[in-house]
């Protein structure tokens, strides 16, 4: 057991490391987890979330979500809100895969209609959506056009026939973070990413066909509102990917820049180099914020053109227009971002820079910034489980204010990739999954073995903990039947 002796239990699902736990902590560190999950938590989570609590300008608490695990700088699952006037921005609080995120797409098809064509569908998706290491995308762009894409995000997709206005409405900030300025990105970042628009990537990135079984609907009213119950055993599509090499290069560029100026120019000392940061209101901080927005927009555009491909594939296989098949987005959620938001703190509403790394914004009912149709329900939250064990759709809750309306983002790993590869064989796993009704295509059996369900925490326990903590409410559990993986 890795739990530090200083960890205090605040409630059934909330734990706290006090400021006395580590020198330099400016606020306590809080972890959302059940007793079982906290006992299984990586030692790295306690170390890293308490490190986050030392960052200048941090407000109220440093948080880690129940899927939290060892990352770099922040733990994966980390959340921290900074006062933008006195605080910092840190690439380690956002991650290398900026705006890695999830989309959930509805169909009006039933599992019975899809099953006979499942292999054909998965094979076509696998052929049409580039996956795996070093893949190039299907949208061919010149480097200057790519600069436009990263400034406009999904708006570029709308102008170029890859999106509908409704898609943009169902994406955070309409699929474009304002203030993205391509003059703040390096030539190297452009060169690394301009040919990757429309690629899924590898690792834990995937596109999955899932079924909403009636017995797995936990909240009928919310499921109705999110369009999840139009037909019995409804088929939906979930996919997970981010800003690819472009975002990774932006993060690397600014991590290095911040390390070179942080102490020398701004006198900021940190406990871990991966927490490199700069004052938010400094030339370097503002340049990174703008470059990060470019990467956010690249990821929105990437997911949008992939959605366009998914529509084409379903349309081809079922000989019907995407509209006739009801291929509509429920929502697009971002995992790795920093964003200026207004939150209640000490009784007054204040603008804060909220870092979310491997965690999901989960706005409760009535909060501004949600599409009109979700004002009463709260934000749809899409939680991807491992490819073997199923995923969830949840809704943000009005009680999530303490954690800046944030929740988990996935299952969270419990086993290293190296260990998973020793324990599982990709080809065997693929056969076993097919016997259990999940048809998976992959570029890499090694990569598939690393993503085995047993390498992850129990998704049911993770989402239950978020609900008990008042962060996100379970709407439905989604069962996988087909998957393409990089």
């Amino acid at each position: 057991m890795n739990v530090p002796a200083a960890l205090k239990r605040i409630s059934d699902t909330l734990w706290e490391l006090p400021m006395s736990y580590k020198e330099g902590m400016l606020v306590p560190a809080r972890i959302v987890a059940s007793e079982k999950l906290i006992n299984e938590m990586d030692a790295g989570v306690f170390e890293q979330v308490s490190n986050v609590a030392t960052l200048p300008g941090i407000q109220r608490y440093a948080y880690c979500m129940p899927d939290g695990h060892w990352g770099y700088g922040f733990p994966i699952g980390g959340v921290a809100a900074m006062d933008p006037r006195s605080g910092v921005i840190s690439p380690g609080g956002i991650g290398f895969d900026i705006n890695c995120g999830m989309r959930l797409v509805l169909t009006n098809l039933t599992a019975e209609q899809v099953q006979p064509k499942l292999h054909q569908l998965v094979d076509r998706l696998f052929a049409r959506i580039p996956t795996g290491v070093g893949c190039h995308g299907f949208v061919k762009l010149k480097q200057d056009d790519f600069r436009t894409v990263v400034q406009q995000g999904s708006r570029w997709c709308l102008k170029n026939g890859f999106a509908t206005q409704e898609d943009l409405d169902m994406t955070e900030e309409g699929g474009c973070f304002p203030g993205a300025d391509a003059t703040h990105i390096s030539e190297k970042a452009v060169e690394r990413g301009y040919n990757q628009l429309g690629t899924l990537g590898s690792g834990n990135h995937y596109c999955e066909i899932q079924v909403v079984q009636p017995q797995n609907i936990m909240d009928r009213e919310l499921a109705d509102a999110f369009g999840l119950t139009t037909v019995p055993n409804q088929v939906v599509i979930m996919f997970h990917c981010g800003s690819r090499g472009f975002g990774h290069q932006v993060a690397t560029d600014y991590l290095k820049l911040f390390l070179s100026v942080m102490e020398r120019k701004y006198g900021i000392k940190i406990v871990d180099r991966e927490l490199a940061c700069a004052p938010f209101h400094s030339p370097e901080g503002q340049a990174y914020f703008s470059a990060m927005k470019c990467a956010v927009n690249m990821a929105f555009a990437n997911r949008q053109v992939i959605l366009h491909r998914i529509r084409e594939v379903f349309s081809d296989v079922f000989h019907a227009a995407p509209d006739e098949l009801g291929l509509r987005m429920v929502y697009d959620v971002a995992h790795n971002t920093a964003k200026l938001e207004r939150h209640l703190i000490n009784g007054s509403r204040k603008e804060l820079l909220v870092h979310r790394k491997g965690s999901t914004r989960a706005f409760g009912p009535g909060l501004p910034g949600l599409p009109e149709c979700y004002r009463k329900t709260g934000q749809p939250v899409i939680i991807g489980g491992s490819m073997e064990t199923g995923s969830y759709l949840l809704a943000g809750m009005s009680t999530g204010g303490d954690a800046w309306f944030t929740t988990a983002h996935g299952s969270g790993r419990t086993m290293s990739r190296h260990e998973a590869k020793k324990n599982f064989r990709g080809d065997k796993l693929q056969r076993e999954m097919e016997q259990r009704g999940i048809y998976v295509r992959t570029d890499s059996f090694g990569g598939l073995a690393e993503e085995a369900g047993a390498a992850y925490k129990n998704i049911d326990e993770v989402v239950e903990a978020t609900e008990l903590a008042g962060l996100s409410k379970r709407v439905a559990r989604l069962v996988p039947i087909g998957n393409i993986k990089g």
Partner: protein
Amino acid sequence: MPFEYRSDIAHADVAFDAWAPTLEELFRDAARATMEVMVENLDQVRPAQTLELKLEQENEEMLLFDFLNELIFYKDARRLILLPADIEISPSDGGLTVRATLSGEEIAPTRHEMRTDVKAVTFLRYKVEQVPQGWRATVVLDV
């Protein structure tokens, strides 16, 4: 063995230790450890293309950091799987300079067994140090 993957310091990422009698060999081994995360059968990569690389940094640590990130860059930008054929590290005005000839080829899915993408070299537990036997590095890659 010139490098060894570690399971104890990163779950979602890939960590390795590399050690070698000389700094040049350390760079070569760390490059191999990085590329092997992405390509299962690295020995099947043919030296069809070569590329000259020159990087300058203030110290060994930052030089290796840039060197490994350069290999990751070429994988995305040009779909090239590259390994150093020759490496020379020498003192320079700015600190240290590495000159290397990288050789390899474009990813060929029919011949190369690809694994998991490496996104970046991180500073988590990152260390390059001189030890009695030569040089040692600990690297955590974000995948």
